[in-house]
C-alpha cells in the first residue's frame, strides 16, 4: 500500500481518481487546490503525486516548482486538459514525470500507477 496525493479542483474527477486508485489498494489523500496540495505534502511524505495542471490558488506547475528537494524524488503524474507542447515542456522542467490528458481512462491511470509503484 502506497500513499498517494490526488490534487484536483474538480470534486468529481477527484472522486474518480480516488476510487480507481483505492481499488488498487492504495491510501489516497485528496487536495482541492494547489495550496491545499502543498500543505498536505508538507504534513507527510507521499509515494506518488497525481496533480491537475489547471488549479486555482496555485497551478499544478506552481506546486511542482515549490516542492522541496526531498519531495522532488517523488514520481509525479500531471493531468492536463491542455495537451500543448509548451505547457508540457515547462511541466517537465518543473519535475513532472508522466502526463495524462483529460479525458483519461481509469484503466490507463491504473496501469500507469501500477507501473510506477
Amino acid at each position, binding site marked *: 500500500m502506497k500513499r498517494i496525493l490526488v490534487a484536483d479542483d474538480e470534486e468529481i474527477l477527484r472522486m474518480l481518481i480516488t476510487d480507481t486508485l483505492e481499488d488498487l489498494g492504495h491510501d489516497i489523500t485528496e487536495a482541492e487546490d494547489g495550496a491545499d496540495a502543498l500543505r498536505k505534502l508538507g504534513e507527510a511524505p507521499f509515494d506518488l503525486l497525481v496533480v491537475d495542471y489547471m488549479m*486555482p490558488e496555485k497551478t499544478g506547475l506552481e506546486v511542482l516548482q515549490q516542492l522541496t528537494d526531498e519531495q522532488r524524488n517523488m514520481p509525479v503524474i500531471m493531468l492536463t486538459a491542455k495537451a500543448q507542447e509548451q505547457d508540457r515542456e515547462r511541466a517537465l522542467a518543473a519535475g513532472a514525470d508522466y502526463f495524462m490528458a483529460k479525458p483519461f481512462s481509469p484503466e490507463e491511470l491504473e496501469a500507469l500507477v501500477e507501473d510506477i509503484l
Partner: protein
Amino acid sequence: MKNRSIRASYIRKSALFIAAVLVVTAAVTGYLMYDQNQSEEAQKQLSERYEAVDAVSERLNELFFHSRSYYAYQNEDDLRSAQLDLRALSVGLDRMEELELSEEERRFALELRSFLIDYETDILPTAAALVAADDYEGLRSFGQEGSVAQINGLFDQASELRNTVFADLQQEYESALDESTTNLLLSFAFGMLVFFAILFMSQRLLRQLIVPVEELTEASDKLAEGETIDIEAASRHDELGVLGRSFMNMASSLQQNEEEMQAQNEELKAQQDSLQDLLEEADKEKRKVDRFSLLNETMSTRLDRQELLDAVFAYVNELYPSDRSMFCMMDTLDFRAANMTGTMIESWQQADKTMWVQRLTDDKRVIITRPAEESDKGIAPAAEITDYYTAVKDAEGHIYAIFAATNIGSRFSEEEMEEIEALMSHVGIGLQRVLIHEEIAKSRKLSQKILDTVNEGIQLIGHDGTCLQENRAAAELIQGEWPESLLQIVDEPEELEKFIEGMISQESAGSASHEFTMQHGESSVVYSVYSTPVFDENQRIGTIFVYRDRTRESELDRMKSELVSTVSHELRTPLSSVLGFTELLLKKELKPERQKKYITTIHKEAKRLTNLINDFLDLQRMESGSQPYRMENVQLDQLVLETIYQFRHVATHELLFEDTAGGAAVQADGERMQQVLTNLISNAVKFSPAGGKVKVTLAAKDDTLQLSVSDEGLGIPESEKARLFQKFQRIDQSDRRNIGGTGLGLAICREIVEKHGGRISVESEEGKGSVFNVELPLRESGQAVDGREQAANGETVFIVEDDASLALLLSEELKTNGYRVVHYMHVDSALSAMKENPPSAAVIDLMLGEGGNGWDLVQRMKQDPATKDIPIVISSALDEAEEKTEEFGITRYLTKPYPPERLSRAVMEHAGGNGDILFPEQNPPS
C-alpha cells in the same frame, strides 16, 4: 618723291649721335690719360733725382765722418770705410749723372767728381801716409786744411741741392693735384653736354612723331564733324606722310560718298513711302494670322469649355463682324450671343432644333433671306435681312454646336462664309478635345471618389519607390513621405521595410501580404498590407499596396482562439467524469451503492455538459445576432411571478417578490426575459448555500423599470465584479467551487438585457450577499409616476398563493387600487415576513401544495400577538368550511372563481381593521 622710313631715319640719327659721343669721349679720355702720364713721369724723375742727390749727400756725410775718424784715431777700418764710401759716392754720382739734371746739379756733380778724384788720389793717400808715419800733427793740420773745408762746402752744397729737389718735387705734386681737379670738372661738363644732347635728340624725335599724330586725330575729329580737313603732315616723306595722304584721300572719298548717299536716300524715301502702304497691308494680314494662331493655341492647349467658347466667339466677331451673332452648344445649350435680346436668346433656346440639326447635317450652311420682322425693325426698318447658319461637327458629322449670324441690309460674301466654315471645322477638333478631356476628368474623378470611399488605404508605388497615387485612407494612415513616415510609426519598421523593398523590386512577381502593428494613442492597431505588381500591356508600371485595419478582426481572432481553448477545457472536465465513471461501471464489479453513485454522477455531469452546450449555443446565437427576438408587450410583474413560481419547490430559501411598480409593461421577448430572471434567481439560490432570503423587487423609477434580485449568499469580491458578466468568468474560490455552473449565465443575461436597451449591474459585499439590478425602459412613460405615487400611499397586502396566474390576477386588482403587493409561496416565509412588517391585509390560499396548508398559516397568525390583528381574506377553490371560519373568525371567504374586484372591495373594507377574516361570498351583494 622718295619715301624715307621713320625707322631708318631714327636708326641713322641715333648712329650718328652715338658715333659723335664716342669720338669726343675718346678724345677727352686720351687727353686726360696723356696729361696724367706726363705728370707721373715728371714726378718720377724728380723723385729719382731726389733719391740720387739724397744718397750722394748721405754718402758724403759718411765719407766725411769716416775720414775724420781715421784722422783722429788712425783706425784702418775707418780708412777702409772711407774708401768704400768713396766708391759708393762714385757709383751714386754715376747714377745721378744718368738722370736729367739741372745746371746747378750738373756743376755740383762735376765739382764732386773732381773732388772725389782728388780725394782718392791725393788726400786719402796723403792722409794714409801721414797715419803710416804717425804724424799726428801733420794729420791735424792736414785735417784742418782745405780738404775739410772743401768737404764741408760740398756737403753744404749737397744739402742745399737736396732741399731744392725736394721743393721741386713738392711743387710737382701740387701742380698734379690741380690738374686732376681741372680734369674732373672737364669730365663732368662733358657728361652734362652728352645728357643735354640726348634730351634734345629725343625731344626732336618725339616732336616729329607726336605732332603729326595729333594733327591726324584732330583731323579725324573734324572729319567726323563733317568739316573740311587739311593735313600738313601729308607733305612728309615718311610713313606719317603716307598716313596723312591716305587719310586725306579717305576723307575726300567719304565726302564724295556722302553726297551720293544723300541722293540715294531721297530715292529710297520715295520707295519707302510706297512700301509703307504695303507693310500696313501685310501687318493687317499678320494680325489676322496672329489672332488665328492665338485662337488655335487656345483651342489646342486649353481644356476649359467656357474659355474655348469665349475665344471662338470673340474671334469670329472680331474678324467677321455681323449685326447679330450667336454660338450655341447642342449638348449643354452653353450660349454666346452678340447684339441679341434676351427674348431672342430664350426663344432660340426653347425652340426645337431638330430641323436645324437635320438641315445642317445635310448641308454645310443655311442662308435665309427675308424681309425685316418686327423684332428687327428697331435697327433698320424695311431692310432686307440675311440669316446665316453653319454648324460645328465632329469627324462623324455629328453636330456639336451651331453658329448663326445675321446681317441687316447686306449679304454675307462667299469668301467670308467659306472662311467661317473652315474656322468651324477647326473649332470642331478643339471642341472634341475638350469633350474628351471632360469625359476623362469625370471618369478620373469618379475613380478617385471610389478609391477615397474605400476603407482600405490604397497606393500605387513607382519603380523608384515614389508614391504615384494614393487614396484618402492611405494618406491618412501614412501622413507624410512614403515610406519614411509610415516606418516611423510602426512597431517593427525593419520587417515592413524589407517587405516594401521586396515588393517594389522588379524581381518580385506575385502578390504577398504582411501584417504590422502600430500604437495609436493607448491602443495597438493591427494593419495588414497586401501588395501586388500592376501591369499595363505586359509592362510593369508599379506596385499596389493595400492597407487594411485588421485590429477588430485580429482581436476577434484572439478572442475566438481563447474561447475555443476555454470551451475545450470546460468540456473536458465533465467528459472526463462521464467517460471515467462509465469505464469503471463497465470494467469493474461494483457494489450496487457504488453503481448508483456513479450513475448519479454521470447523469449530473451529462446534464452539466448539456447545459453548458445549450448556454454556449445560446450565447453564440445571441452574439452573432442570429438570435431572433420576438418583441412584444410584456407585463414584467407577471413574468416575475411565473418565474418565481417555478422555484416554489425550493425549500431551503425564502423566495419573495415585492412589487411596487404600478404598471410594468415593457417591450420585450418574454421567453428571453424569463431566461434572465431564471438565471438570476437560480444564481441567487446557488450562491447562497446557507439559505436565506431571495427577494425579487420590481419598482418603477422615471422612465425605467427596475428589477432586482438579492440574496444573502457568498457575495462577490470587488476584484471580480468587472469580469463578472464576461464569458466563462467564474469566481474560483474553494467555498463556491462545487457550485455547478457554466460560467455563461451572466454573460447571457447581459446580452439579453442589452438587446432590450437595458442595463445590468451588480452590488455586492463579500459574505453578505449580492444584488443584481436590471434596468429596462418602460413602454409608456407616465406609468412609472402612477405606480410610484400609488406605492407611496399604498398599504402593503401579502398574497400567499401557489398559483402564479391567480396570484397575478389578485396582485393586478390590488395594485390598481393602490396597494403594494408582496407575494409569498410558503407558509413559513410568509409568517416570518408578517412578524417583521405586518401588512394591511393578507390574502391566503388554503391549498398551498408544497408551501403548506393555508389553515396552518391562519392558525399560527392568530396565535401570535404580532399578527393576530391582520385582516385575512381566504381565497379558496374549496367551499367555505364553516367550522374553521368560526374557529378563526375569518373576515371574508372568497370561493374561486370570483371576480377580482370582489377581493379588492373586501380588502378595502377591512384593511387596517381588527383582524377580521373575510370569507368569499357566494354571490355579489345585490
